[in-house]
């Protein structure tokens, strides 16, 4: 079967070379993202080691149930994303669009819940730098915890929003039939990104929500 030339960018010799280049390119990008979030996790690790009691107390101000539900939502969205990649490779146009839409929906609910949570913190004066209040002697260290909480979940939510935007574009392209094989590679690449954002949350959930829950 002759390869459709319009699917192949000029600088590549064949589609397999192009696919591998895109895949490796995304993985290299994700390696940079690991360090980007990693710098935050490094800071988190230092302060958690230094101020364990205060951070445990501050962590109890987050809702574990909320966090767990959000985790479940995001894991499910990774599943629908994996299914989208699966259908993209098979060339199922409608099923691809459906899976992408489900992924967007789950992701959007996640971001919505995140905003609700932030709003609660705002009302309880738990936003650092904006009239932060915390009962007990460790307000200073608790503010540090919440600074990291907002930085980590904020950068994560930003990545979610970018991901939702990318998936929305892909849904449109899928409906127009522009992602039929061999032009399905963008779905693969977007999938890698989405799963990565999921993995970040897999770590954020225990780091932020599950510190020292057994002590009342």
């Amino acid at each position: 079967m002759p390869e459709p030339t319009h699917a192949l960018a000029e600088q590549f010799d064949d589609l397999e070379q192009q696919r591998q280049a895109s895949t490796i390119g995304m993985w290299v990008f994700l390696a940079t993202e690991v360090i980007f979030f990693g710098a935050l996790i490094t800071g988190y690790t230092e302060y958690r080691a230094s101020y364990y009691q205060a951070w445990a107390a501050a962590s109890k101000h987050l809702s574990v149930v909320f966090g767990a539900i959000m985790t479940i939502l995001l894991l499910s969205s990774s599943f629908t994303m994996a299914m989208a990649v699966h259908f993209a490779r098979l060339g199922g146009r409608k099923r691809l669009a459906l899976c992408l839409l489900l992924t967007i929906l789950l992701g959007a609910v996640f971001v919505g819940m995140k905003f609700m949570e932030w709003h609660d913190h705002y009302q309880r004066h738990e936003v650092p730098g904006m009239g932060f209040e915390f009962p007990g002697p460790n307000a200073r260290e608790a503010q540090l915890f919440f600074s990291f909480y907002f930085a980590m979940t904020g950068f994560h939510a930003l990545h979610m929003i970018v991901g939702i935007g990318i998936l929305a574009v892909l849904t449109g392209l899928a409906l127009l039939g522009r992602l039929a094989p061999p032009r399905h590679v963008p779905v693969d690449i977007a999938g890698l990104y989405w799963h990565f954002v999921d993995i970040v949350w897999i770590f954020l959930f225990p780091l932020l929500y599950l510190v020292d829950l057994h002590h009342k």
Partner: protein
Amino acid sequence: MSSKTVEPVSETPVNYLNASFGLRSWLLTIDHKRIALLYLVTITLFFFVGGVFALLIRLELLTPRGDLFTAETYNKLFTMHGLIMIFFFLIPAVPAVLGNFLVPLMIGARDLAFPRINLLSYYIYAVGGTFTMYSVVAGGVDTGWTFYTPYSSTYSNTHVTAMVIGIFITGFSSILTGLNFIVTIHKMRAPGLTWFRLPLFLWSIYATSIIMILGTPSVAMALALVAMERLLHIGIFDPRLGGDPLLFQHLFWFYSHPAVYIMILPGMGIVSEIVPCFSRKRIFGYSFVAFSSLAIAVLGFLVWGHHMFVAGQSIYAGIIFSALSFLVAIPSAVKVFNWTATLYKGSVSFATPMLYALGFIGLFTIGGLTGLVLATLGLDIHVHDTYFVIAHFHYIMVGGMVMAYLGGIHFWWPKITGRLYPDSWGRLAAAIIFIGFNLTFFPQFIVGYLGMPRRYHVYPPEFQVLNVFSTAGASILGVGYLLPLLYLFWSLKYGAKSPANPWDATGLEWMAPSPPPTQNFPVTPLVAWEAYEYEKREVPVA
């Protein structure tokens, strides 16, 4: 491949420079060669802006008293000199200009793997540069290029936020360039061009790219946190609020120490191309030179704490960092020994690029060995934050990297522009730069060892003689840098047309016409030879 024919000069064949015209065809180009030229122009601009700040610093230091600038202005001058030179010249210079131009040509490809991302990364660089220049014009920054907290995050009243945003944005340009090179070198090599047939320039560009993608995000996050702290006063790095200023230094140096290898590794790659060509010999110990680049890239990430010996870091961590720092000297020395061994019994000739390469080897060696002095835990306490440190890193950055960059520009100028420049002028400029450089920075080793601290606009009168030498040297250096600008510009119009391979060098880039057509190679070349097969060539026709 061995026979050399001079192309007919009568009519100009279609090449990447005359393939299309108009501003649009340049600003929206996705041709890696044109993007390289966009970078060349922008980077040259930043180099001279940074250079003006350097000259102002040297002018102030002509006399021991602060009679030209106030302390505050002086703080801004050295900060902006550092920021512009490091983030907008040294880091992008070789990768973004020569790397962009040469990577596809050297591997026999039509372009980089992601040409659009390549253009995007240029514009990200331009936007970051705009923020930075805004900060400079609005009144500047006085934190030093290292942005140490809590001064930068809490106390400084200068335009830190705009500057930090500028550097943050520029970081993504670096990341995307590195990503593009890594994928391209992995996936786009011509058939037959195995890893061990690659020019060593590509090994060093590859190692550089690794540092770019794995280091840059760390400083980006550190600077983002500084910006957040300035906006919200939350004290992530402020000890008054429970923060740890050393955490900032860790995150900053996790990138910024490896970043000095982003600056020097591509220079080493250039020297590894020039030395075999002008010795007419295969490089000595190819695989050692290749792997030493990777070793520097990896080891370079494990030594950052040597910037923090006196900052309050744990002495035990200091011992680890000191020991690891010594290890980096090994791959660096391997390279110097291999270049020297390549020269041995070669038919050495001294064209302009070779003068720069030889200058690099000598000055880099001095800079590297004085680095060992600074990596020594006890000795560093004596010379920390003195002009000894300034001299050390300028021997690496200016004596090493800028020499190599100019060597590379002179080596590939005929390929880039299709024109030859007057070699006598080139050699004259190289000599002036070498003399001016040493006169500027060697006295700083002495004055630093005697105890003159960095970052002060006044100093005790007994240091004046050495400072006068240094300022005189800086003026000579300034002239030296202006000369290439003039005669290279001149050559664009009046220089003789260059044949495809004016140096009779090996490497795929010399098989394409000068300047190359947009597609680089009409047919993908098939590589059936090893790198640097200079001994197998016929004696060049005079």
